[in-house]
């Protein structure tokens, strides 16, 4: 199939594959940039100003650079979580719920007496990871044991997580009678240390870097990773080879859940929030789908894509604040990028070359298993 790129099992073609992917990503970026240009020109009264803000604002100040790096670190985490399950060809979409309930669980630790001590920081992180892993495990075991569709179950869990978190915040975590939807600020010992003073760059950046390396090592240097990629590549072949796909499914979704939970801790214990608010996630988790798809689920490519996309997101946010173009324009751009990157638009060109060479016709006959349905 197109997502777990074919080169992943053949190291000798790694560089050609990588070059093709980079070209494809660049073409998608250029087309997305053109679309942004057109949309801004049609919707804004001051298009030049809006575009200048989009392109230059994120690196204009130390503070905005901090926003960008912080956003990229978080995008890396959600992208990693999605890439892990996508590589196993599981379309689990539970990062949102894992993030929200992970962050909510942290608040219980941080706002308890433990949160005042040094234990608050590590315990909060561990609790978030465990909650996230549990939320990944449940749909995983339901898929492996019962064949319950993971797309539906994880999405339903996301909605449940949102409501549960809102309930816990309103009833349990907010000071009684205040009517607020935001908790007190977490005590200092429970917060991530800030790495660059005056910015949002904090311990979360280290976690993001470590997670990238850990996922890369797990996927490409362990037998678990090899099995996972084999299952994602061709589940039936993997089964004939003696690999238990069920174990891989459950473990991939659990590990991805742990990453999602850690991201929840990065949100609420980090410099960006330092407290728990209803709706703090704001649909962020699903940005990881774009990051994972554009990075072709390669762990080492994910931070690079996250840096690019984070820049675009921050530029759009600042454009939203300073000019008349709404930040939601990014949703449109994101959709176009996903469509272009996931479609093999090199194919018509290749078919044309083949025809020139006299081999005729289409590169893939319709009805061949490759040209078939989603299981290609």
């Amino acid at each position: 199939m197109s997502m777990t790129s074919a080169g992943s099992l053949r190291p000798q073609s790694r560089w050609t594959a990588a070059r093709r992917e980079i070209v494809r990503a660049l073409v998608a970026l250029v087309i997305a940039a053109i679309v942004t240009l057109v949309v801004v020109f049609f919707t804004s009264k001051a298009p030049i100003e809006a575009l200048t803000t989009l392109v230059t604002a994120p690196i204009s100040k130390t503070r905005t650079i901090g926003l960008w790096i912080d956003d990229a670190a978080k995008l890396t985490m959600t992208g990693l979580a999605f890439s892990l399950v996508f590589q196993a060809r599981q379309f689990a979409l539970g990062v949102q719920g894992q993030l929200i309930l992970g962050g909510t669980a942290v608040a219980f630790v941080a706002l308890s007496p433990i949160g005042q001590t040094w234990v608050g920081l590590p315990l909060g992180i561990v609790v978030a990871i465990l909650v996230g892993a549990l939320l990944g495990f449940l749909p995983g075991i339901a898929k492996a044991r019962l064949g319950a569709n993971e797309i539906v179950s994880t999405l339903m869990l996301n909605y449940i997580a949102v409501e549960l978190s809102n309930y816990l915040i309103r009833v349990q975590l907010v000071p009684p009678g205040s009517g607020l939807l935001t908790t007190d600020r977490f005590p200092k010992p429970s917060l991530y240390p800030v790495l660059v003073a005056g910015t949002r760059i904090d311990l979360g950046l280290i976690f993001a870097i470590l997670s990238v390396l850990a996922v890369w090592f797990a996927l490409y240097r362990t037998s678990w990773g090899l099995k996972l990629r084999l299952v994602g590549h061709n589940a039936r072949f993997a089964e004939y080879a003696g690999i238990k796909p069920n174990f891989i499914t459950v473990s991939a979704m659990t590990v991805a859940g742990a990453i999602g939970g850690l991201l929840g801790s990065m949100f609420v214990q980090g410099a960006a929030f330092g407290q728990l608010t209803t709706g703090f996630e704001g649909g962020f988790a699903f940005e990881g789908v774009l990051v994972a798809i554009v990075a072709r689920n390669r762990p080492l490519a994910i931070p690079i894509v996250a840096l690019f996309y984070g820049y675009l997101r921050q530029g759009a946010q600042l454009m939203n604040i300073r000019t008349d173009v709404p930040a939601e324009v990014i949703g449109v751009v994101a959709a176009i990028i996903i469509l272009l990157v996931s479609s093999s638009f090199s194919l018509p060109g290749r078919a044309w070359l083949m025809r020139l060479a006299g081999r005729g016709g289409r590169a893939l006959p319709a009805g061949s298993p490759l040209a078939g349905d989603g299981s290609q």
Partner: protein
Amino acid sequence: MNELILTIFSAAFLATVIRTSTPLLLATLGGLIADLSGALNVALDGIMLIGCLAAVVASAHAPWYVGVLAGLVAGGVVGAVMAFFHLRMKADIIIVGFAISALATGGTVFGLSIATGGDKGTSINLPSKAIPAIDLSFLDAIPGIGPFLTSILSGHSFLSWVAALLVFGIWYFLYRTPWGLWLRAVGEYPSAPEAAGIQVTKVRAWSLVVSAALAGLGGAQLAMFNYIGFTANMTAGRGFIALGAVLLGARHPVGVLLAAVLFGAFDGLTTVLPGLFDWIPPELIRMIPFVVTILALVLFSIRAQRALAMRAAR
């Protein structure tokens, strides 16, 4: 508790269920068509949302039926885009669905802001219209059950009746016409219809267009009858519940009708419960449809697993 039972079996609640089930049923039928043709339409929720916005914006400037048509056509166009990227550009259908979802969440807010000149949350400044309710109060004349029939059947959206007819129409199409047979064959084993000279790609493309158009119609019902006007993310996961309803309904039109009505009933319950039990936290009430969907999915999967095991044993 007695109040709850009385409420659930009241005619007013049955009428509520018909109302809440209609958008769900339309989207579920859309999901069914795509699923039978072999493509899982993950974008149902996003397409509904786009249908909502199209219907609201069009009906603000034109009669109500143009609004409904706009929802339908907007859905169909999105379906054509999906078909193009999936079938021509060979993109994975699930990824295409993700892209359409991203487009819908951001794009509808962006589109609303353009259509209203800056509003982002709701279309409160847009005088959008409603689908007229169909008055069947003449049923009162039937002796005995007349008033009961009226309270259940009268005052529903025009689209509720369309949806009910579509269940029958789609059943007839799928099981009594050659095109329905082609569609099911394409989803089941594409090589066979290919060998029989049927254009598999064409069947798939039309299935996606129809699937998305039905979801768009569901959006029109949602934004022009269940609620009047557009709110960001107003579908609240209905499209994903519809995806679950397709599975639960065993991929049969009548099955998905029952599944959609079941989920619609729990959706209706969330509107009734707060008035009856004010001590239940509203967040927990809003959770009900999603919890029920997961339970239904798990139970259905257990049953399907068991059926598979029995077939293997035989």
